[in-house]
């Protein structure tokens, strides 16, 4: 269950952040993160960030997820 994808926090406004998912941006709720910061990578499930992840992890996961080798 529980499709969740990694993205990067672009901006923060209260409990909301704008997160970039490989070129797609959407607001995400960051209520469940401790001290979120701009530039950090997070895993987002149905519009809510549920965990911070290392940049490396996010990028690896993401490359596989989207098979991003873009010709």
């Amino acid at each position: 269950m529980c499709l969740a994808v990694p993205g990067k926090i672009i901006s923060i406004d209260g409990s909301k952040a704008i997160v970039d998912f490989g070129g797609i941006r959407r607001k995400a709720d960051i209520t469940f993160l401790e001290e979120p910061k701009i530039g950090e990578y997070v895993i987002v499930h149905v519009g809510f960030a549920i965990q911070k992840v290392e940049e490396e992890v996010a990028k690896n996961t993401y490359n596989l997820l989207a098979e991003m080798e873009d010709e």
Partner: protein
Amino acid sequence: MNCATGACPVPDEPKGVIKLADGAGGREMHELIKEIGARLRTSGWQGSDDDAASFCVKEGRVFFTTDSYVVTPLFFPGGNIGKLAFCGTVNDLAVKGALPIGLSLSLVIEEGLPKDEFFKIIQTIGELSKKHKIPIVTGDTKVMDKGAVDKLVICTSGVGTGELIDSKVEEGDVIVVSGGIGEHGAALLAKRFELETELETDSKVMLEEVAAIQAYARHIKDITRGGLASVLCEIAEKKGVMLEVEEEAIPAKKEVKALCGMLGIDFMNLACEGRLVAICKPDFDISALKKLNPAAAIIGKVSKGSGVVVQTRLGKKMLHMPSGNIVPRIC
């Protein structure tokens, strides 16, 4: 959107909304039709302003197609319902090998549609019609009570002439797509689910694409609502062959794949409005197609058997005709 050449007079922005009276057959309706006509290229056939338009039949094959268009919202990144209608109708003819010689345009309008929106859509159709020199030769306008239709329904027909592209598909033939898939579907889903992207509809007229592959093509299909998956399944079934596709060879923008990852949707199920799939002879030369769209690619080949087999990065899977509406999943 401006006239492609800059030479056409752009009529003033009309104010107000479409009313029931605008479709009642009286003075208001004649004025509306006049205003529509001013924005369209209607010449080419005889009697376009009469009950039926006519043209002389030369020798050869006549192609005829019809379609209806509904889309929410009417305007979306990179286009509107008018663009879909024009390109869709032309493409239906083009992929069969026809050069379109005229289209019809029937408009079913919901009362209350703002006139500026309505005429923007007509303007788009007019500009495309002029650019591609395909006239709108006849049409109809109806206005319905509020709630009876959703804003605007466009019904078209198209007539063309040419040589039919449809021959036997053989083992070893290659499967070609004309560009990155799913951009139209992704752009609409992004709007619906409040996602910010640079993605725009891929809606376009594909006459040049067809010309670029015509010499090699055995069968061409316009990819539309059901996405690539649906079209491939249809071809495999109709032609009684197996289509073997390399998933990693299928071109798609990284934003399209990212959006699919987020919403849990298979990118092969996303709608396209300006992409085609072709089955071409084994010696197919893709260079002309790549000049039109560098993302064009050979994605697989035809073999004996049935169905569509997708080779993923790891294992193989069968592809089936998608069903139901596309909805994002949570899991």
